[in-house]
C-alpha cells in the first residue's frame, strides 16, 4: 500500500469514527428516548417533545462537540507545525485561557447581551493577544522550554484575571462559573451557541488549511521554507488569525478544554508519516472524535454531576504531557 493510500484509509476510518460518535452523542441523554424515535425526530418538522429535545438540545451539543474537537485538534497540529515544536498547543500556550478571559469579559460585563457577536469576537481578541504574546515572549525558533514558560505566564495571568472578573460580578452564580471557563463543558448549549461560534470556527479552519504546504516546508526551517516560495509573514498571519478565530469561538461557547490539541496530533503524527500538512486534516478528525468521546463519557460516568470536559481530558492528557516533557528533555540533552 502506498503512503497516500494509507493516509486516505486513515482519514476514512477517522471520518467513520467521528460519524459513529456523533450519532452516539445524539442518542445519549437523561430523557431516555428510543433510538429510532430519536433519530427520526431529528428530522421531524412538528414541535413534538422528542423532536425538540433532539433538535434543540442534543443536536447542538453533538455539533459543538465535533466542531470544537476539530478546532482543538487542527489548531494544535497547526501550531506544532508552525512553531516546529511538539509542545505547542492552544491550552498549554495560554490561548484557551486568554480566549476564556475575553469571553468572560464579554458575558459578565453584559456586553454580549447587548451585542451577541461580542462574545466570539472578544474571545477571538483574547486568543489573538495570547498567540502574539507567546510568539513574542518565546521569540524566533523558540525552544520547547521557552515556549512552555511563555504559555505558563500567559495562562496564569489570564486565569487570574478571569477569576477576578467573576469574583467581582454581583451575580452570586458568577464566582462558581470559574470552573466552566477553566475546564469547559457542553452542557445545555443551544443552537444559538452553534450559530454564534461555528462561522468563526469554519473561517479559522479555512485559514489553517491554507498553510498546510507551508508547514511541510517549515520542517526544513524558516529560511528554506521562504526560499521555496512561501511568504512567512502570510503564513504567520494565517496561523495566528486562524487559531485565534477557531479557538476563540470554541472557547467562547464551551470554555477552555485542554490537552486535546496536544495529544491528538502526537498520536496521529506517526500514522501520517509526520507530514505536517496531512496531520492537519487527521488531527481535526481525531480531535472531533476525542471530544465527542469525552463528552459522551462525562454523561455516562456522572449523568447528574455536570462533570467538566477538561477534567477528563486532563486525566488522560496530563500524564501524557509529562511523558512528552521527559522525552523532549532526553532528546535535548
Amino acid at each position, binding site marked *: 500500500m502506498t*503512503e*497516500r493510500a494509507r493516509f486516505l484509509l486513515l482519514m476514512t476510518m477517522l471520518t467513520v469514527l467521528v460519524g459513529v460518535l456523533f450519532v452516539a452523542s445524539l442518542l445519549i441523554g437523561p430523557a431516555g428516548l428510543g433510538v429510532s424515535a430519536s433519530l427520526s425526530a431529528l428530522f421531524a418538522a412538528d414541535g413534538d417533545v422528542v423532536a425538540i429535545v433532539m433538535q434543540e438540545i442534543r443536536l447542538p451539543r453533538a455539533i459543538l462537540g465535533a466542531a470544537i474537537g476539530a478546532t482543538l485538534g487542527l489548531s494544535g497540529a497547526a501550531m506544532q507545525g508552525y512553531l*516546529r515544536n511538539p509542545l505547542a498547543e492552544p491550552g498549554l500556550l495560554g490561548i484557551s485561557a486568554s480566549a476564556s478571559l475575553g469571553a468572560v469579559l464579554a458575558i459578565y460585563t453584559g456586553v454580549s447581551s447587548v451585542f451577541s457577536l461580542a462574545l466570539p469576537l472578544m474571545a477571538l481578541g483574547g486568543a489573538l493577544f495570547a498567540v502574539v504574546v507567546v510568539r513574542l515572549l518565546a521569540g524566533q525558533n523558540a525552544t520547547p522550554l521557552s515556549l512552555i514558560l511563555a504559555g505558563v505566564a500567559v495562562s496564569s495571568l489570564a486565569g487570574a484575571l478571569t477569576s477576578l472578573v467573576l469574583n467581582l460580578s454581583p451575580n452570586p452564580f458568577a464566582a462558581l462559573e470559574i470552573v466552566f471557563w477553566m475546564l469547559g463543558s457542553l452542557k445545555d448549549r443551544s443552537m444559538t451557541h452553534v450559530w454564534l461560534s461555528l462561522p468563526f470556527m469554519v473561517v479559522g479552519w479555512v485559514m489553517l488549511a491554507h498553510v*498546510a*504546504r507551508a508547514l*511541510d*516546508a*517549515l*520542517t*526544513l*526551517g524558516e*529560511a*528554506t521554507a*521562504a*526560499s*521555496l*516560495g*512561501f*511568504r512567512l509573514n502570510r503564513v504567520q498571519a494565517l496561523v495566528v488569525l486562524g487559531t485565534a478565530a477557531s479557538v476563540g469561538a470554541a472557547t467562547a461557547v464551551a470554555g477552555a478544554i485542554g490537552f486535546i490539541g496536544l495529544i491528538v496530533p502526537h498520536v496521529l*503524527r506517526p500514522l501520517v*508519516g*509526520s*507530514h*505536517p*500538512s496531512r496531520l492537519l486534516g487527521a488531527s481535526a478528525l481525531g480531535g472531533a472524535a476525542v471530544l465527542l468521546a469525552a463528552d459522551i463519557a462525562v454523561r455516562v460516568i456522572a449523568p447528574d454531576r455536570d462533570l467538566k470536559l477538561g477534567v477528563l481530558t486532563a486525566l488522560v492528557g496530563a500524564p501524557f504531557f509529562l511523558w512528552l516533557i521527559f522525552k523532549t528533555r532526553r532528546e535535548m540533552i
Partner: protein
Amino acid sequence: MTGVAAPLFEVSGLSVALGGRDVIDTLSYTLEAGTVVGLIGPNGSGKSTLLKAALSLLPYRGSIRYSGQDLAGITATARAKCLAYLPQDGEVIWPIAVEDVVMLGRAPHRSGLAPPSQADVTAVESALAAMDLMEVRRRSARMLSGGERSRVLMARALAQQTPLLLADEPTTGLDPAHQIALMETFRGMARDGKTVLASLHDLGLAAQWCDRLLLLHQGRIVLAGTAQDVLTPKALEQVYGVEAYFGESRAGRVVVPIARI
C-alpha cells in the same frame, strides 16, 4: 536592447544592515550562467548574510537582478523557481522519510495538495541518485548521520531544479569522498548550464573546483576572479591571517593553510 545578454545574476550596490550595522556594505558582483562560484572569507565576513539577502530573506538596499529582472518585483513562487537555497546547519524537525524531504524541493512547481506529477517524481529520483541516497530513501531523515542528512538537504535543493543554486557551506560535515562527490555534482550542474554560488571554508576545494572565487572581508568583496587571482599569499595573510602551502597536483592548484600569522 543592447544586444548583450544580461548576466544570470547581478547584485549591485547591495547593503544589508543587521543590528544597526552594515554587515554587507555596497557590494556588487555578477554570476554568469554555467559556472561554479566559490564564496570564501573568514567567519563573520558576511557570507551567509550575502546569500540570504540574495534570496530576499533579509531586508536589503541596492538591487538584485535575475536575468535582468529585479527580484523585488517577482512573486516568491516565481523566485523559488529560479533560485534554490541550501542553508547552513540545515534541519529536519519532523521524522519525515528522506524521499519526502527531497520532494519538498518540488514545492514551487506543485499546486495545492495534488499528488506529485511525473516531472516531480523524476526530479526527486535523479536528486536521490545524485546524492547517493537510494538506499536510505525510506528512512526517517532524523535518523541519519550528519553527513547523510547534509546530502538529503542537498538533494532537496537539487530537486528544486533551478538555474541558480545558493549553497551555504554545503561541504561542511561531509567526508572527503562525499565532499568531492558534491563538488562533482556542482560541476555537472555547471555543464548543464546551471550556476552554483557556494560559500566554502575549505580553500583547497575552492581552489580545485570553482571557476571563480569571491573573497569576502568585512562585508565587502576584496578580490574576485580565478583561484590563481584570489588565493594569493598576500590575500590569505591580510584576510584570514594565515600562511598557506601552495602546490600543484594533477587535479590543479592545492592550497593548504599551515600556520597563523
